[in-house]
């Protein structure tokens, strides 16, 4: 246990030092705290009303709903545990160092498990405990205690199960990535199609009422499981972790890359255009098709399409018109599909920007090509969705065209802002080598400037949605055109000036 304590202490010290000295960490903490306070307050308010309603409906309904609530909370914890297992257990210098040290497997697992609780899911656990704890205590009094104990013990077991599942995937599935990707894609597409089919033919599934167990005995089972996980089973999971680690780190460098048939066709098509835009599209198609985040985004887009009918029904009660919904939803999903890499269109290049700077290209041509490359997928997704949703909502031809134009205008303004604005954070000395470095540089808002850019871009999109919402059709269209014009003119001037200054070293 002494070694596990030492490891935890080192991590705590690192976190403390980072919080004191690193601006990025301070900003991240500030954002997390703001998020906790805002989301927490809103959720407590909502849950207080809900619990009162459940109580009024009788003890059977109350227990069933509380079980559902706990399951939801565990589901969220499971998601964050999976992410944290990957970030804490693999792909960083600390994990590499720990693997080289002679630590018994059981201790190794306990150390990772402890880190998971306070570093990986700590914030979410705290948020869930407060959000669920306060309404339950206020509404149920002492009875809430048994549910809170169940919730927390459940978290320990769910965390363990999620860690083991992640390790099993990394050990046995990742080595067969191509097959796994296909199964995931086909599976998620199947689910979406099934969901759409069910909704379209207006099938309603009967609500299943399973007999619910009392929280006390289940908590006892969880205690036994917890003792087993940190006791007898710790050695086995520790060994599994080591095997997964060696499997990931020791993957042969000679294996071929994953080439999806559709992407091959796209890259061939883009390869025909012998200019910068064609080159960026060629590179982008291949690069993104091998990026796991792209597939995550695709799944999110599919889910968003699937839940459109639900969102439509929900927002109808808030007097949202179908026109507004189609415009906001289509452009929102299109932005969601590219947001985490478009926001760093240029800054994610780092030192690789030199590849373009040493080519005989004008800065203006480079900026234009960048914009086109990010606009094409966003417009493709946004316009296709608005077309489908317009048909779904039964729009006339005029309404459909109006929706399409507005979606295009919103996307042009927004994408221009984030793609050209990202020149602001470009750093020619920043290297992007190795999985983690590439991942953090291309996918995460890790710098204060990126965070500010994202914040500003959200204000812009809010302003655009407001124009569409509050102004009549004849006025909202020119207003969007004007806003786009301003963004294009200012963005072009700013990004050109910034890149020039970067090259001259001032």
């Amino acid at each position: 246990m002494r070694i596990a304590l030492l490891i935890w202490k080192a991590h705590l010290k690192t976190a403390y030092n980072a919080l004191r000295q690193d601006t990025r960490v301070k900003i991240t903490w500030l954002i997390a705290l703001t998020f906790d306070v805002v989301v927490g307050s809103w959720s407590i308010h909502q849950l207080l009303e809900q619990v009162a309603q459940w109580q009024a409906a009788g003890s059977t309904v109350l227990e069933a709903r509380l079980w559902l609530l706990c399951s939801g909370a565990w589901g969220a914890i499971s998601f964050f545990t999976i992410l944290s297992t990957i970030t804490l257990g693999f792909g960083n210098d600390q994990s590499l160092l720990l693997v080289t040290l002679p630590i018994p497997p059981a201790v190794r697992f306990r150390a990772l498990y402890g880190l998971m609780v306070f570093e990986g899911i700590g914030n979410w656990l705290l948020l869930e405990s407060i959000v669920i704890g306060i309404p339950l205590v206020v509404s149920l009094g002492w009875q809430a205690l048994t549910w809170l104990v169940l919730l927390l013990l459940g978290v320990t077991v769910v965390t363990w199960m999620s860690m083991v599942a992640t390790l099993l995937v990394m050990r046995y599935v990742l080595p067969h990535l191509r097959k796994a990707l296909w199964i995931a894609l086909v599976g998620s597409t199947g689910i979406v199609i099934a969901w759409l089919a069910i909704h379209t033919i207006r099938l309603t599934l009967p609500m299943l009422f399973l007999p619910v167990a009392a929280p006390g005995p289940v908590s006892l089972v969880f205690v036994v499981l917890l003792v087993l996980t940190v006791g007898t089973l710790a050695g086995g999971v520790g060994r599994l972790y080591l095997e997964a680690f060696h499997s990931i780190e020791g993957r042969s460098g000679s294996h071929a890359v994953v080439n999806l048939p559709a992407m091959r066709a796209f890259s061939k098509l883009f390869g025909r255009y012998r200019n910068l835009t064609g080159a960026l599209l060629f590179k982008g198609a291949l690069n993104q098709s091998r990026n796991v985040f792209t597939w995550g985004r695709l799944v999110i887009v599919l889910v968003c399409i699937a839940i459109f009918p639900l969102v439509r029904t929900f927002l109808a009660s808030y007097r949202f018109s179908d026109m507004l919904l189609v415009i906001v939803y289509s452009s929102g999903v299109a932005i969601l599909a590219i947001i985490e890499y478009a926001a760093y269109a240029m800054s994610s290049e780092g030192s690789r920007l030199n590849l373009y700077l040493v080519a005989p290209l004008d800065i203006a041509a480079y900026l234009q090509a960048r914009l086109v490359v990010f606009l094409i997928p966003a417009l493709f997704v946004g316009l296709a969705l608005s077309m489908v949703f317009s048909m779904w909502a039964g729009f006339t031809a005029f309404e459909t065209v109006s929706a399409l134009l507005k979606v295009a205008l919103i996307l042009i303004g927004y994408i221009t802002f984030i793609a050209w604005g990202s020149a602001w954070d470009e750093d020619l000395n920043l290297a992007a080598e190795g999985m983690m470095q590439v991942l953090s540089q291309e996918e995460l808002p890790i710098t204060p400037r990126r965070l500010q850019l994202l914040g500003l871009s959200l204000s812009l999109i809010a302003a655009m949605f407001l124009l569409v919402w509050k102004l009549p059709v004849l006025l909202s269209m020119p207003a969007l055109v004007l806003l786009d014009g301003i963004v294009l003119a200012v963005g072009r001037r700013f990004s050109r000036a910034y890149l020039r200054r970067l090259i001259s070293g001032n």
Partner: protein
Amino acid sequence: MAKAVLGYVADRSMLYDRLTGREFLAFLAQVRGIQQLEADTRIEHLLDLLELKDRADTACGTYSFGMKRKLTIAGSLIHEPPVLILDEPLNGLDPLSARRLKDLFAELAAGGKTIFLSTHDLATAESICHRVGIIHKGRLLVEGSASELRQVASAPDLEAVFFTLTAEETGVPV
């Protein structure tokens, strides 16, 4: 444009980890507007020349340090520039890779290319460069062949030449 005749190799690899070596070169050829057939021929030639053919279809991110450096050099040669600027091209390479690259530079120079090689390794400069310029604090102190420089500073090698010329500023006794 001047950039069209220049090839540049930075002191670090500037690659896209998820592209294969062949795809990376194809991308650079496209950026420079080289026609597809011509590009394919040049890519094959460069992969051969730099002994990268065996790993041409695996992701750049899985390459060793030396292979990444060689791919970067191949990228700088894709448009067949008459002038090549190399920034510390041999840093961190194993002796065999370093030797092969030195031979390649000699071949390219013999073929008519002008190579500007920036290095802190004076022994390398002495062994492969026809002319050497010593830059100190942004100022060109001296320029000439290695033997000319040795004569100017009455020193046995370039390291001694450097210390002689910068003795006052560095404080290192000659």
